[in-house]
């Protein structure tokens, strides 16, 4: 009897232990969750990792039915939502934008200006920088099949050759001679036609000297022309608030006749600026900015200056790097609130608190010189924190910090005397009409011997100011980072 009782008691204990083990085991994550977490933790939020996750779903579509469409494709939207739910459960909360992976390839339409003042940019004796820039644009666009080329001056005319013949053409202006009327360029007509012809997923690029040269300007004052140019620009773009425009300024050899606004044409041999104007839906440019495939297309190596019009304030992905060589004093990253530091305490001897934030500034689509220039940032805090900023280099990435630096581009180090119980550090990158446009603009182009002729464009500022005014409402900030501090 005792034996039976003992066996019964031991079985009872075994049942209790089994129940405990079941509770413990039931809380584990599935294979998909593990794969997503691994990508985040390993700092490997790349397309290759995404493909592995997709393969896992496709191996077992019944188990992951919510991520598979009726046609058997991956439901990118549902998967993206799930991935970011998993990411938000991690420390620090992490994001992974996969929307670009499953989308159709973009298409490119090149509008190559063929006015009288453009042909000297591509003479047999010149350096051919303009043609090289356009060729690079086409070559670095990921989908060559979706490329179309048009010639523009008084109107838009399809290029009669193929993309390959365009790329190989050593004298493009000679082979397109007789296309349209090269004596003037109607920007209003051209921009409106470009925008109206643009379908979703299309990127248009106008290759131009951006010199406003309408018909019948004889005896019209410079001021009147510049005001007209400014109004034309605003009137074109104010009705297309969903578009974004990137103006890339480049320099090229110019060998030939120059046609000033008001004066006799004269021969000029030297450097002159020209422009690649990228026009697309703002969402399309955001997508390209976040996708490395388009990096060389958006940032050609020969670009001297660049500015994107109609850039909405981006939600910046930032993470405080908890264990960093520059850290001074003590702090702890709050678990319940992102971008909040608790238990903050300055160094015992100096009172200085120093911490580093990793930020992904790639969506801003700015070059590193701009992003790493601390003068472009406005820093506000009660304690008078100052910042330094620099791009992340491969040497910065270690086993222990790769989770924090994955997908990030810059390190912002904040330093100051933390002498209050609460503080809020606000770092703002202002979106201002850039100085380079003012510096690259002239109001007279009748004399090539004037200083700055080689680096300025007649009426550039007024035209681009017109575009800026069309889009400027509410777009005065590229991005803002706020870090809360508590002692």
């Amino acid at each position, binding site marked *: 009897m005792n034996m039976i009782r003992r066996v019964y008691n*031991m079985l009872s204990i075994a049942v209790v232990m089994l129940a405990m083990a079941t509770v413990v085991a039931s809380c584990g994550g599935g294979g998909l969750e593990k794969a997503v977490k691994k990508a985040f933790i390993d700092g490997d939020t790349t397309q290759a990792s995404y493909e592995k996750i997709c393969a896992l779903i496709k191996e077992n579509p019944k188990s992951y039915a919510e991520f598979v469409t009726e046609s058997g494709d991956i439901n990118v939207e549902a998967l993206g939502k799930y991935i970011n739910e998993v990411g938000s459960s991690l420390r620090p909360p992490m994001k992974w934008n996969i929307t670009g992976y499953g989308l159709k390839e973009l298409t490119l339409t090149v509008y190559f200006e063929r006015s009288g003042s453009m042909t000297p940019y591509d003479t047999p004796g010149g350096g051919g920088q303009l043609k090289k820039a356009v060729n690079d644009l086409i070559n670095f666009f990921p989908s060559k099949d979706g490329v179309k080329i048009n010639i523009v001056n008084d109107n838009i005319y399809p290029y009669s050759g193929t993309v390959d013949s365009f790329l190989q053409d050593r004298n493009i202006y000679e082979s397109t001679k007789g296309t349209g009327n090269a004596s003037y360029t109607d920007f209003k007509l051209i921009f409106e036609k470009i925008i109206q012809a643009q379908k979703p997923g299309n990127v248009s690029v106008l290759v131009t000297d951006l010199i406003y040269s309408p018909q019948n300007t004889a005896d019209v004052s410079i001021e009147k022309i510049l005001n007209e140019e400014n109004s034309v620009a605003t009137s074109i773009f104010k009705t297309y608030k969903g578009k974004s425009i990137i103006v890339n300024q480049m320099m090229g050899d110019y060998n030939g006749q120059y046609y000033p606004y008001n004066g006799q044409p004269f021969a000029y041999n030297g450097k002159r600026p020209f422009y690649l104007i990228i026009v697309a839906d703002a969402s399309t440019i955001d997508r390209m900015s976040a996708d490395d495939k388009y990096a060389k297309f958006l940032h050609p190596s020969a670009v001297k200056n660049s500015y994107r019009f109609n850039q909405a304030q981006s939600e910046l992905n930032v993470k405080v790097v908890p264990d960093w060589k520059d850290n001074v004093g003590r702090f702890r990253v709050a678990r319940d609130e992102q971008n909040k530091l608790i238990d903050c305490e300055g160094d015992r001897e100096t009172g200085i608190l120093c911490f580093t934030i990793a930020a992904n500034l790639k969506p801003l689509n700015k070059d590193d010189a701009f992003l790493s220039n601390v003068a472009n940032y406005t820093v506000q805090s009660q304690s008078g924190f100052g910042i330094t900023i620099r791009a992340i280099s491969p040497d910065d990435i270690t086993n222990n910090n790769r989770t924090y630096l994955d997908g990030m581009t810059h390190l912002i180090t904040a330093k100051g005397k933390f002498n209050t119980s609460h503080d809020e550090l606000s770092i703002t990158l202002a979106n201002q009409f850039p100085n380079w446009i003012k510096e690259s603009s002239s109001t007279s182009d009748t004399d090539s011997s004037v200083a700055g002729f080689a680096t300025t464009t007649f009426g550039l500022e007024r035209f681009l100011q017109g575009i800026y005014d069309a889009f400027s409402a509410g777009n005065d900030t590229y991005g803002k980072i706020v870090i809360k501090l508590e002692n």
Partner: protein
Amino acid sequence: MRDKVIFLVIGAVLSVLFWIFRVELYEAVYNVNGFSDQMYNTGAYGSVAAITIAMAWGLAAIYYYVINSVKFDRWYHWLAMLGIASVLTPVVCYIVIDNFLEGFDYSTSEFTFAFYNILFTAVTFVIASFSIRWWSSNCRHTPIPQ
């Protein structure tokens, strides 16, 4: 008999609560920037807590039902078993954590964390002992007589 079952149920509930609140409990004792994030992200806290519970209950069960001898029914025999559990469990946990955090360089923090886990192992072993001792034929009076 009913009182003994209540002890068993309380012990089981406490152990499950330990597993549920493992992150809060472990981080209340040892919380380090970076290391604690990765312990949380990789799910290592869950495995460490599960191992701690399983080993404490398992070693207590071995003492009361496998050893279960009058030769080993003194309080210091039980204390020796607690000592074995408190050394063995952190060693196993250290190996498991090191596996979870493969690719990271947190060996000092891993060792310190495993050291702190001695506390949780000892407490869980005591809870397990007082949950299951009552049905042991020779050691039910250990460590404290009924």
